[in-house]
């Protein structure tokens, strides 16, 4: 809510300083979004003397002025009739290039062919509230002087953000109440006005609430002999300061009282109402209503659970309740008699209607959050009647109409002192609690039974009172008390620890960690995925390419690579630790992944190393060291099956038994449509962290003792068909080794093969076509004793023989 401080001071006694006022806003919980100090903002405005004024030909309400803005210098300025300008008077002028307090910059313009190099500024253009319309002077020595230097403007425009639970602060008086409570001041409420209705011949206009759950209270007053015209400057400048435009005195008064009390009001042209009889009811099929903003509501076209609540006269709806008045019944310059209404509507009803119809207003904004049906409504209603009588010459005709079927009683909350003190960690005594809460309008008795004013729609239990007490004594006066009570063991869940461990490994190996959005384009969401479920789709995406929850991290990392390629990236090693998600039926599935891509050279010593782009075996080897060193796992790398996105034959499924740990492989750039934008081979991998954690925690880490014998290294060369996979050779060798050992248990030796590595693969002469020679290195030992050379030889012979027969 945009506040002019001078206006706020109307309601405070004694007058606080601006600094105190601002501190009070913060302590109350009214966040200061923005401040415009008018004294500073008015510095660039200069005094110019009007030398000549003549109407602009062919235009009504426009005047061409010649203004002396510096001694001897005349500017041509076109102004409106908002404030009558007279030749010979000094007026405030914003010259071209000047910025007005609320941000508008003055530019030179041509209006109806006339140069206009500036703007004559009535107070309202400057955000200043004043009884006068404009600063004027006859002192010629002030020509060219800054407005701020010739008059005292001690006002600020403060944009306050009112918390959503405090609609009672959506008016000056509500804000004044908070400030007064904090600073120990009194609130000055405008004097109440009771109009005479002793000779009530006509009686009040009948009013009736049909929808009593949707409307709590409805009051109204007919006022006759109204003269509609412009409002006085004190009122106009206040509306402008709040960002509103004055319309006419009657409408301006309803807006002013809305800003003052936070209570919406509406003034109908009484002569356009049938009956007159006012009914609060739902709109009916077949009805329509033209609103002030020009749109027409047609009941039959409205798609809401319940048709909207309206104010109707005897025959037709005349206003959309709590949101907007109807156009045919509005107050115009021809109006001579008005029906002023004030009401309290159910906040959920107004919210649903406003949102459902897409129409909002200053009224609906307040009703949606909740208004007071009691003292605030009454006070605002009386204030508006008084102002209409005073400013339009109208007279209240008849006694006020009122429908209030079920009085809203103040809630009573028993407050326990121990609970207050235990909640805040302080020691307050009952008199303090009583005094402080009373400042906010609560009625508190000796036993701390608290009666809550009905404008406090948020206050439904004791903790709200405790919060109010904390605000009043100040959050700063609550001490910092080091935590007492039982202490738990802090720390991290095992999966989080695993993520930290893997992140350290990845970064130590040159990978850069990314954070990429998990919402992606539907077309890439399921590429590379290791999940077996359908993707979760967002119903209301902000962009088409952020519509689906990703099922793999690889597409996002490829997008990173692509961006870096455009931006002259050097290295293409990226990783991310995040969830991949989907839906199994209607049940969300969330699984943690380590995703990575690698597309750069193997080493970083460009000047010395040979050009060696990364290849499948390099990425695989990297993952093997991750599995081996970090997790003590030795999974298998299998050719089939693969998810979409990988190049078959150069990619693998990583598995341990029947469990799939993840995938690794060459990215099929054509398939993922990156071949034009990423012009080098790139590898991707993704691992299932939940499964890795499960496998890792299942291991027992026990010390194996130190061996008593030396390890033996023996090379074995065999010739096998070229089509045989290494994994088959390895498996056969290991099997042959254990067979050979178990065939010789009688020797007492029990060697174990500790590693089996590939030394060489050779195809070509003298190896026959279709065959390859494979050299393996076996490292084995009996940890307890040294093997004899005879035993070793027979072991190797037996293994060789077995392999030859397997691959014959």
């Amino acid at each position, binding site marked *: 809510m945009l506040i002019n401080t001078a206006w706020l001071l109307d309601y405070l006694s004694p007058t606080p300083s601006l600094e105190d006022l601002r501190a009070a806003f913060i302590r109350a*919980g009214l966040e200061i979004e923005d401040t415009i100090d008018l004294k500073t903002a008015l510095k660039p405005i200069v005094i110019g003397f009007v030398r000549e004024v003549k109407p602009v030909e062919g235009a009504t309400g426009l005047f061409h002025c010649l203004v002396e803005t510096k001694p001897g210098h005349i500017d041509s300025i076109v102004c409106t009739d908002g404030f009558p300008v007279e030749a010979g008077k000094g007026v405030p002028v914003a010259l071209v290039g000047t910025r007005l307090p609320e941000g508008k910059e003055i530019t030179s313009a041509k209006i109806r062919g006339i140069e206009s190099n500036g703007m004559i500024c009535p107070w309202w253009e400057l955000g200043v509230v004043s009884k006068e319309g404009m600063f004027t002077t006859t002192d010629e020595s002030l020509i060219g002087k800054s407005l701020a230097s010739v008059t005292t403007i001690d006002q600020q425009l403060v944009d306050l953000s009112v918390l959503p639970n405090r609609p009672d602060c959506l008016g000056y008086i509500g804000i004044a109440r908070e400030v007064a409570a904090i600073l120990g001041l009194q609130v000055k409420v405008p004097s109440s006005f009771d109009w005479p209705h002793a000779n009530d011949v006509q009686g009040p206009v009948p009013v009736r609430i049909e929808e009593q759950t949707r409307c709590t209270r409805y009051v109204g007053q007919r006022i006759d002999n109204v003269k509609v015209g412009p409002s006085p400057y004190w009122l106009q400048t206040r509306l402008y300061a709040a960002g509103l435009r004055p319309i006419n005195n009657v409408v301006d008064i309803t807006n002013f009282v809305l800003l003052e009390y936070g209570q919406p009001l509406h003034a109908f042209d009484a002569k356009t109402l049938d009956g007159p009889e006012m009914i609060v009811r739902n709109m009916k099929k077949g009805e329509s209503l033209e609103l002030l903003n020009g749109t027409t509501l047609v009941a039959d076209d409205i798609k809401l659970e319940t048709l909207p609540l309206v104010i109707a006269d005897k025959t037709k709806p005349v206003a959309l309740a709590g949101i907007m008045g109807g156009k045919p019944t509005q107050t115009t310059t021809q109006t001579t008699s008005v029906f002023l209404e004030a009401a309290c509507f159910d906040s959920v009803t107004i919210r649903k209607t406003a949102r459902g119809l897409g129409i909002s207003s200053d009224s609906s904004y307040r009703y949606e959050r909740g208004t007071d049906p009691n003292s605030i409504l009454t006070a605002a209603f009386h204030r508006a009647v008084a102002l209409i009588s005073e400013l339009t010459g109208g007279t209240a005709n008849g006694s006020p109409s009122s429908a209030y079927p079920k009085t809203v009683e103040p809630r009573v909350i028993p407050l326990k002192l121990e609970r207050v003190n235990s909640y*805040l*960690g302080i020691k307050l005594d009952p008199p303090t609690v009583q005094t402080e809460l009373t400042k906010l309008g609560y009625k508190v008795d000796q036993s701390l039974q608290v009666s809550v004013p009905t404008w406090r729609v948020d206050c439904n239990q004791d*903790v709200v009172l405790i919060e109010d007490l904390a605000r009043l004594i100040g959050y700063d006066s*609550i001490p910092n008390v080091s935590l*007492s009570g039982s202490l738990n063991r802090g720390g991290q869940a095992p999966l989080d620890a695993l993520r930290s461990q893997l992140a350290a490994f990845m970064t130590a190996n040159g990978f*850069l960690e990314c954070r990429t959005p998990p919402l992606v384009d539907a077309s890439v969401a399921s590429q590379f995925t290791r999940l077996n479920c359908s993707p979760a789709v967002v*119903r209301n995406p*902000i962009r088409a390419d952020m519509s689906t929850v990703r099922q793999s991290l690889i597409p996002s990392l490829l997008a990173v690579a692509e961006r870096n390629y455009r931006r002259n990236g050097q290295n293409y090693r990226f990783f991310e630790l995040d969830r991949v998600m989907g839906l199994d039926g209607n049940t969300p599935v969330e699984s943690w992944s380590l995703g990575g891509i690698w597309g750069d050279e193997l080493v970083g010593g460009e000047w010395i190393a040979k050009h060696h782009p990364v290849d499948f075996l390099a990425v695989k080897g990297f993952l093997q060291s991750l599995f081996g060193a970090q997790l003590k796992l030795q999974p298998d790398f299998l050719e089939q099956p693969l998810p979409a996105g990988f190049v078959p034959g150069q990619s693998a499924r990583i598995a341990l038994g029947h469990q799939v740990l993840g995938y690794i492989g060459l990215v099929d750039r054509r398939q993922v449509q990156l071949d034009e934008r990423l012009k080098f081979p790139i590898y991707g991998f993704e691992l299932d962290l939940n499964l890795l954690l499960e496998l890792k925690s299942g291991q027992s880490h026990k010390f194996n003792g130190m061996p008593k014998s030396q390890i033996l290294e023996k090379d074995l060369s065999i010739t096998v068909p070229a089509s045989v996979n290494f994994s088959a050779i390895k498996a056969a060798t290991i099997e042959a080794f254990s067979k050979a050992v178990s065939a010789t248990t009688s020797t007492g030796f029990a060697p174990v093969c500790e590693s089996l590595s590939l030394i060489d693969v050779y195809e070509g002469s003298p190896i026959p076509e279709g065959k390859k020679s494979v050299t393996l290195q076996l490292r084995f030992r009996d940890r307890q004793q040294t093997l004899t050379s005879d035993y070793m030889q027979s072991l190797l012979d037996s293994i060789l023989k077995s392999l030859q027969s397997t691959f014959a």
Partner: protein
Amino acid sequence: MTSSVDEISRINTQAQSEMAAAGDLKAVEAIRVKYLGKKGEITALMKNLKDLSPDERKAFGQQINDAKSTLEAALDDAERSLQQAAIDAELKKSRIDVSLPGFAPPAGARHPIMQTLDLVKGILAGLGYHYDDYPEIETEFYNFDSLNTPAWHPARDMHDTFYTTSGHVMRTHTTAFQMHAIKKYGPPPLRMMTAGRCYRCDQIDASHFPIFHQLDVFAIDKSLSFADLKWTLHELARGLFGEDAKLQFRPSFFPFTTPSAEVDVWFKGRWLEILGSGMMRPEVLQNAGLDPMEWQGFAFGLGIDRMAMIRYGIDDIRHLYDNEEEFLRQF
């Protein structure tokens, strides 16, 4: 006798000049053999001693011994300096230009968001908070209802919250973890935390991204108070901003806390809003099956993206999600 003395001095002189000419260890060894070997010239002189009188033998013997040790010392010196020269030559040959670029794999780095998150988590773990992960695809119940956010609350609007076609919400705040954590780790006393991605329908600009990171914390015990909350946040702030960190607590509103406070830290000459906090609302405790007259708790949550931006002076949130190498390598 005299001729023998002359002989010693001659041998001495000759040996010295030969040594000066010796260019390698082999030559030095040859000189050693020539004079001090079994058939060497000095050894030969020793053999003559037996022909002399006892007095002469003593004096002459002394002279030969002196000559011998002088020569031995000189030979050792010559040998050592030749060895040193060989080492020097070897070192000179293998000298490298140490200013040449090293043979380094590219350096990796953790993302600034994750570094910041680890820092905050570390401080809180030290205060006894337990970290765990909780769902991102949430039910409306956990994300809103359990946290006292009624069905009509504006935060639940389609303008603010991503809904899935399955009727779930992408969690809008990590606060959604509260009831999960109470159920998983309860009953109290509890000190729990989580962090991770949250989703809101914001258009992307310099300070908004529809997906961002939060960290959320709560503690529940018999008599935890607002004063305990203040202390905890001061500890956290000191960990993040240094021992003199200054905080400002401003009243605020969250459906799941009362009293609520927005917390600012004094940073580079102004107050910066860093987190929201408050005493857990009785409704929330009740929803989790706890008696609000028995238990009291506090909770707070902070935006990690914003914290990272403050720590590193990052001016545009989009940098965090563009993942450009130039950016990532700076942390």
